[in-house]
């Protein structure tokens, strides 16, 4: 068995240290040095640095962050906005919460670096409404940063003004999709927009906009401080750096863990998360939040936790919200819970998602109640085909992936619940 990689702690380095949420302790432990360093750099050089680091969006899509930034046109006569996506709502995901709860200044520092690089002077943290207590902590940190003149008309004494405000959502998973987040921030129903145009040119208030996830932004201080090369040295060839995984379900030690990308999946479950709870056997894993295809225990063998390996194994890294299912789990019931979620959270804007998610959820409820027919199993797959790739945003596809993977990989469990 190969030796496990030496793990670097970037995001969780200080997470358990006392009073890390205060600006005093944050600075004492080296905080805001990276921002100071960044402010002395050319903005474009900073973007190049982020590009070179190989950092990819940690919200779920994994799009290269530096490249996303470089799509923003410069010197338009419109302002540029950075929006921090803290609408963490993907079932199984609770990694951003811990960053904001315990180390909120790291996010502020990351945002300030990003804003400087993008020449953005007004920025919002869109936090899901349920996380009000998290938002309060984050707000307190913002207040401290203003007081310390890290934010405001002159960031750390430099001729660069920056305001950051917290904006609370009010209960809508779809607002984690970036164009929906923008619509919501503009005071509308969170209906995703049709792309193009992309937010990079027509985002918040029709201005150039970058939407980045909390975890993505929180990685910036370390990258600036230690250099792109140091970050790029961690992980695999295409999946660089570290990633937070929030693991839940049937494991002995659920929680948030930071591992180098490329870490073996089963080692993660067994060594980090304490293995399957109560000495039971592993049945399946949803590795990246409820939207990604489920993997059987057998499929997990030898798979590494990075974007490419999981894709090759037929699933996705997603948000890193890992859900572990033990041998006692009913797959039809699990899928029913997941399908209910997508039906509830479908915004209702476009036809296939609005109608398909609701229909699939009802069929699953029927099957579980013992009122399903065997043909319903194929009907679920047909509905998945009817939805896939035909909608404005990826929510329907996020329902398709669990439906298709659960039904095909555990078909007999569904059929056994059906009559004729």
């Amino acid at each position, binding site marked *: 068995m190969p030796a496990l990689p030496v793990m670097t702690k970037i995001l969780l380095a200080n997470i358990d240290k006392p009073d890390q949420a205060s600006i005093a302790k944050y600075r004492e432990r080296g905080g805001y040095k990276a921002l100071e360093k960044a402010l002395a750099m050319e903005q474009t050089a900073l973007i190049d640095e982020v590009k070179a680091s190989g950092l990819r969006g940690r919200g779920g899509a994994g799009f290269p962050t530096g490249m996303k930034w470089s799509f923003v046109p410069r010197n338009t006569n419109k302002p540029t906005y950075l929006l921090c996506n803290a609408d963490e709502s993907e079932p199984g995901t609770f990694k951003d919460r811990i960053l904001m709860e315990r180390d909120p200044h790291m996010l502020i520092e990351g945002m300030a670096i990003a804003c400087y690089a993008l020449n953005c002077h007004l920025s919002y943290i869109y936090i899901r409404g349920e996380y009000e207590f998290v938002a309060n902590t984050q707000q307190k940190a913002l207040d401290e940063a203003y007081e310390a003149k890290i934010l405001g008309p002159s960031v750390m004494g430099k001729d660069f003004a920056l305001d950051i405000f917290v904006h609370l959502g009010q209960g*809508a998973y779809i607002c984690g999709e970036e164009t929906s987040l923008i619509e919501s921030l503009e005071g509308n*129903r969170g209906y995703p927009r*049709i792309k193009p145009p992309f937010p990079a040119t027509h985002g918040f208030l029709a201005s150039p906009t970058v939407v980045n996830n909390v975890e993505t932004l929180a990685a910036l201080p370390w990258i600036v401080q230690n250099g792109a090369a140091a970050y790029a040295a961690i992980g695999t060839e295409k999946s660089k750096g570290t990633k937070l995984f929030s693991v839940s379900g049937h494991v002995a030690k659920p929680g948030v863990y930071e591992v180098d990308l490329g870490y073996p999946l089963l080692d993660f479950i067994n060594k980090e998360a304490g293995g399957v709870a109560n000495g039971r056997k592993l049945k399946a894993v949803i590795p990246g939040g409820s939207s990604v295809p489920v993997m059987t225990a057998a499929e997990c063998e030898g798979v590494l936790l990075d974007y490419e390996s999981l894709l090759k194994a037929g699933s996705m890294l997603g948000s890193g919200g890992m859900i572990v299912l033990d041998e006692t789990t009913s797959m039809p019931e699990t899928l029913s819970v997941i399908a209910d979620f997508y*039906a*509830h*959270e*479908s*915004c*209702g*804007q*476009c*036809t*296939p998602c*609005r*109608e*398909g*998610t*609701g*229909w699939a959820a*009802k069929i699953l409820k*029927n099957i579980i109640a013992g009122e399903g027919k065997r043909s319903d199993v194929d*009907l679920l797959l047909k509905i998945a*085909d*009817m*939805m896939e*790739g*035909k*909608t*404005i945003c990826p929510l329907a596809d996020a329902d398709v992936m669990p439906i298709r993977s659960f039904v095909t990989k555990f078909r007999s469990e569904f059929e056994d619940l059906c009559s004729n």
Partner: protein
Amino acid sequence: MPKFTLNGQEIEAKAGQTIIQAAEDHGVEIPHYCYHADLPIDGNCRMCLVDVEKMPKLTPACTTLVNEGMVVRSENERVKQAVRGVLEFLLINHPVDCPVCDQAGECRLQDYYMVYGLHTSEIPLGMKVRKRKVIDLGPMVVLDQERCVLCSRCIRFFEHVTETGEMQFFGRGDHVAIGTFEDRPLNNPYSGNVVDICPVGALTSRDFRFKCRVWFLHATDSICGGCSTGCAVRIDHRDGAIFRMIPRRNPEVNRSWLCDEGRLSFHELNKTERISRPLMKGRDGVQAPVTWEEAVRSIDARLKEIRAANGAGSILGFASPSATNEGLFLFKRYVGDQLGATQFDFRVDSEDKNVLEEEDQILRHFDKHPNSTGAIKLGLMSKELGGIDGAIEAARAGQIKAGVVIYFPPLVRRACDEEVEGRVFELIDVLEYSVVLAAHKSEWQTAASVVLPVTPWSEEEGTYTNFEGRVQFAGKAIDAGGDALAVWEAFAMLLHASGAESPWMSAEDVFASLTEHVPAYREVTLDKTRLPGVIVG
């Protein structure tokens, strides 16, 4: 001008066109619910998905701009399957209550089901999402939320056309429903349009509901007679009765819209009793029915007597701005050219009629007559007379003895109409000899020396010239009852009786003469008066 390939055929699109627009221009209909030529694009229904080479996923034709060299397929199996899927989704929660739905026969769900669907429903009734039905949304519209496909056309109409924002989405997911705040009535003057643009039976017309199945109706293209805007309309009728009027698209005038007053204006035609036969006062001063031949012979003789006694200046020609150009042209031909009268006017309700004044920024004009500009262009407005008040004064002063009057009350009624009617009565009353051409019975009728029954808007074909000078053709939808003739026919008879040439056999013939004799209309052909019409100088 980008060239692209659609279903194997090379097509040239206009710059900035989307696939659906370019396809439509070339006669290829890509199925859709939410796309509407006169509303901002939304892309929500997903019916117009097409297969574009080099694009991994199917893409909506309504949101995708045509690019040079693009290869698009809207009819391959992949597209058909996607469209079938979307249609099946739209129908799962739909009540499929076609037998009691007014939209049946012109419903896009029915139409596309026949082309793409033909599937068997796989959803048991009990699984359908239930929503509210028969919600009263004011004088024009009734809402059925269950039939709605949530295309947002109505919402976008109120947001972008009337800018009143009454209709909205409420809720989320498959429970989203459209509606107004607290079911408040839609009381903006354009609310009826959402019934037309609703592709399904969710918004139906309060006026037309349950009156007639649409496949029993006959359609006639016309121009709204309700004001000087001249909106293109389609009159739907059956057995001599108009059932509804809906807009036709004229991008130059009304786009796809029609105001509510105009939409309901046809009802005005049947609110009062018609004049069915020519009536003439005898020596005893009592009106009695006569034949048209008797009437025109007598009128021509009498007017010539008056001319001989008092000169041509004593004869007044008072036209109606609601008559067709053809009617007004022969009116002028007879009263002016044949009898030599010089005093003409048509203004009944204001001294300084400004036909250009808008009532709102959308469609409506204050001038509730469809052909005021036509009357002006035919020389029927006299500066000296200054409208009906001047005519009354001149008649009182004895300068005017006789008058030929055409009178159609406006189809869109106003508060001042009673007063206007009173003035028309007064004019007829003060004239020594009056010939009145009208469709409806009214108080003034007994004062007239001769009454000739003529056909109003929708009962004769002809052209109208709108506020901006646009000449537009309106067809004849229904036959007038009784002995009524078109205005032009009445004057053709009078000209014949008067010994003048009268070669016209149809409104079309009259229009040809008009273009020959009226310089402003010289370049106009009847063809040009069809959509979008033609502006004359």
